[in-house]
């Protein structure tokens, strides 16, 4: 089960990396490949779910085994969503390939770095059963939210100043929003690791606030 989950995590990380690369290079072909590979992640989720249910039925796991199994189910669900967000980013890349370039992407690069790092560290925390590392991941989520705000502001200003940049700027905002969601999912993953190790449920309060904020901004 662990191996399946690790395989899924590594694919999800790769998908995010490749999608972001396609955005940078405005590479429609690479983006299309990413989109097509998403089904591999979906299949892994199904396999994990099936195995988990069988394990529950046949072995009645207890204590750490039980917490690990339940968290594995939740993590696989989160990783599948990470895959979906990677697909969204790849779709932005495709649209960007046909749009006029945007001169200043502001904090988007930093945001991409932090989000992918958070995902990688959350997975490392799971492998190493490291609750402290998991907590660090949770703490970085605010930084991503701040980058998200800044990208929005910069892109809005750009759109106001240069109508020709609207299409590209919108795609950048979408990429930022998907990165923000990936960071949130990494935080969820980290919280699940804390649950496995310490049997404690840690809720990330800022999560709901930032989601509502992002929705609100987009409606402007």
């Amino acid at each position, binding site marked *: 089960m662990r191996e399946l989950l690790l395989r899924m995590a590594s694919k999800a990380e790769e998908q995010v990396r490749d999608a972001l690369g396609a955005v940078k290079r405005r590479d429609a072909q690479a983006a299309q490949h990413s989109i097509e590979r998403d089904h591999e992640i979906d299949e892994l989720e199904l396999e994990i779910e099936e195995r988990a249910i069988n394990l529950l039925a046949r072995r009645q796991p*207890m*204590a750490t*085994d039980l*917490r690990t199994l339940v968290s594995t189910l939740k993590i696989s669900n989160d990783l599948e969503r990470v895959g979906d967000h990677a697909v969204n980013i790849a779709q932005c890349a495709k649209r960007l390939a046909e749009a006029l370039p945007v001169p200043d992407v502001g904090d988007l690069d930093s945001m991409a770095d932090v989000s992918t790092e958070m995902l990688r560290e959350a997975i490392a925390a799971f492998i190493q059963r490291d609750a402290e590392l998991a907590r660090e991941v949770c703490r970085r989520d605010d930084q991503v939210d701040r980058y998200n705000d800044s990208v929005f502001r910069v892109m809005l200003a750009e759109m106001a100043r240069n109508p020709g940049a609207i299409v590209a700027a919108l795609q950048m905002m979408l990429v930022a929003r998907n990165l923000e969601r990936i960071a949130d999912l990494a935080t969820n993953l980290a919280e699940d690791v804390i649950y496995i190790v310490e049997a404690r449920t840690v809720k990330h309060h800022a999560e709901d606030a930032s989601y509502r904020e992002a929705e609100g901004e987009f409606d402007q």
Partner: protein
Amino acid sequence: MPTIRVSADGDAALETRDVHVHYGDAEAIKGITMEIPRNRVVALIGPSGCGKSTLLRCFNRMNDLVPIAKVTGEVLFRGENLYADHVDPVEVRRRIGMVFQKPNPFPKSIYDNVAFGPRLYGRPSDLDDIVERALQQAALWDEVKDRLGHSALGLSGGQQQRLCIARALAVTPEVLLMDEPASALDPIATAKIEELIQQLVEHYTIVIVTHNMQQAARVSHYTAYLYIGELIEYDVTDTIFTAPNEKHTEDYVTGRFG
């Protein structure tokens, strides 16, 4: 040694204080102090030979019947030490009843099995009511009401066990001690016993020894984990099975040994 404080959950029906049991030179129970909360189910779990049955038998002086057994320490029931000199062990066993792994109905009629206890204490005029009530409480009445005169030995294993429970209930105990009550029964009979336990706990305090962890998880409010005569951990059942504090407990409930 971790012990739950029963004051958080009503008063204690039973309490042990530094109880030791020796079988000759061998020490089977090495100083156990614990409280059994009233109207709750407490499960005693642990690998074979850990002393759970021995501990159970301390609660109603059944170890008195084992010649080489020596019990020290106190077992308090209603504030009184059951092992004090003036205490009548027979009366103890009426108030703290016991049900065993292998159903042991008397070779008499169903009625006479249940009536046996009450008759020992006199000839109550309402014996029929007493028998019916006990059989009702043991969830057996409907199945046997038309054949009370039949031999108890003609009942199925599950029914015999419920008859033994009815027999214990007929003398109005406060506590029921159950030593692996369902081990000799098939899954359906086991489920019936477990359901019965959930009903009985409303009126009685129940301590159950079981080697089946899933059963302990299903029926008990509190679980005590014993290992080689020591109380390793004693806590709310949810905690023992989702996040035990002791590594030893964790290893046992996850099946790493035992």
